[in-house]
């Protein structure tokens, strides 16, 4: 039986289209992007903030600076050039991010839980997330669905989402959110809504596990197709490339 995490990975991977240039964040986005490249999007252009352009990793990379990303890449360039020449200037189609918290406007927190000066949990910080969230043509976010992670107000805005009351005019910003409960999008006012549910989950659960109201964007709400045997097999193959004891 696949885990809720695997369902998220597969649902996120399905959102990527062949030939898109996707700037891949750490964690689930990394797994999902590598899965997509082995499924429907073989020519997906994997870009990493470490300066890797068009990676073809032989195994699932452990981090954005993993040597396997470098080996068969089209290019490895200074981070300065990746950020200024490619990300900030609109050459990235999809920013693919995780986060600790998200709010109704898609603002992301990956900095602290609690107060910045006296945090309860000090997280890793932005890295390139703030730039990816605002520089990519659109952003896909993947995260577990829980009340802590979907608060009315994130503890810290690391990566800005849509501005209050509207969706970004240029199409940038949060486009889809994949969680353990469903698939989410954003309406014209830039607020999150449900687009589909994970199999076996309900809209009531979504409401129950979110600190803000998340309306349905379509009626009736569709249910996402279960991961196929092929999807799960390739995901398992991908995980098998990791060193023992590593979480993928």
């Amino acid at each position, binding site marked *: 039986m696949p885990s809720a995490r695997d369902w998220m990975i597969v649902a996120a991977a399905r959102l990527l289209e062949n030939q898109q240039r996707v700037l891949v964040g*750490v964690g689930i986005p990394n797994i999902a992007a590598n899965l997509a490249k082995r499924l429907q999007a073989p020519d997906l252009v994997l870009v990493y*903030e*470490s*300066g*890797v352009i068009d990676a073809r990793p032989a195994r699932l*990379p*452990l*981090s*954005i*600076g*993993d*040597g396997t990303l*470098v*080996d068969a890449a089209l290019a*490895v*360039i*200074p*981070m*300065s050039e990746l*950020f*200024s020449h490619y*990300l*900030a200037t609109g050459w990235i189609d999809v920013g693919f991010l995780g986060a600790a918290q998200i709010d109704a406007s898609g603002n992301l927190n990956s*900095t602290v839980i609690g107060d*910045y*000066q*006296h*945090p*309860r*949990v*000090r*997280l*890793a*910080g*932005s*890295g*390139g*997330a*703030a*730039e990816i969230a*605002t*520089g990519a043509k659109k952003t896909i976010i993947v995260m577990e669905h829980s009340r802590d992670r979907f608060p009315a107000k994130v503890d*810290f*805005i*690391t*990566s*800005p989402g849509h501005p209050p009351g509207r969706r970004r005019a240029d199409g940038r910003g949060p486009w889809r959110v994949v969680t353990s409960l469903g698939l989410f999008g954003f309406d014209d006012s830039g607020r999150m809504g449900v687009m589909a549910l994970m199999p076996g989950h309900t809209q009531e659960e979504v409401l129950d596990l979110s600190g803000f109201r998340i309306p349905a964007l379509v009626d009736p709400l569709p249910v996402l197709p279960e991961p196929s045997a092929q999807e799960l097999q390739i995901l398992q193959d991908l995980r098998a490339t990791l*060193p023992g*004891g*590593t979480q993928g």
Partner: protein
Amino acid sequence: MSKQQELADLIRESIQDHMTVYMAGFSHLIPFAAGHEMIRQNLRHLTLCRATPDLLYDQMIAAGLADRLAFSYAGNPGVGLLPAFRHAAESGLLALDEYTHAEMICRLEAGAAGLPFWPLAAEDNDLSRLRGRPRVACPFTGQDVAVVPALNPDVAVLHVQMADDEGNLYVWGLPGDIKEAALASRVIVATAEKVHPADSLRHLRDYLMIPGFRVKGVTEVPFGAHPSYATGLYERDTRLYQEWTQLAKTDEGRQAWLDDWVRGVPSHAAYLAKLGENYLDALKTREGGFNRALSS
């Protein structure tokens, strides 16, 4: 004139308490050997800088070297968080100058160019709101452009795959922010997997990262980036990255590891001997870009 010196001398003569230090490297080429020597020399009140502090900085923070950290992403790559950093940040023991990656790199670009600020495309976030990130009006278009202040560390410490006796530094694989960090710094010192005679590496022109006249001293330190990796030479020792997360959960655990592997060994050579030849051999890259590059 040879720029080679012993690692202990290189650190002693280049780095003093209260300095601002950038231990460069990005995912690979993290100067662990140099950082461990700094721990052995018991340096204090440093401001440590790096876009991506990882295991080495966690160890240096655990050892009490740092009062302040300038950074943009403090994680254990592929593993999770950094226990010593977390503890220090959550308990207020470490002052933080926190940026995004693009901001941090632009600070280095300004430093390397000798300018006081650098422009970048950036929206406000809570970091910029808390810390401040002024904008200047473009005199040509009127557009408001975000700017960050220059970062000019006192010393940059690099680990490179190859150097020559005159301090010319050669790097393969991810450049990350290594060059910008080095050139933004007043003094550059380096460890290298191998130091070759002067003039013997000129055929590797396209891999020169820093010319020798910018470098104060260089030391040959094989496996000087272990447990991080060196493209073409050896792989990351992922086991150690994973174990750190567990053993560093408590200060006792962290100090025990430092006593065992850093303060309790006299040198990096002794550290390598303790790991054992077979252990290190297993990390060596079987083939790859570096050998290809060397044969060219």
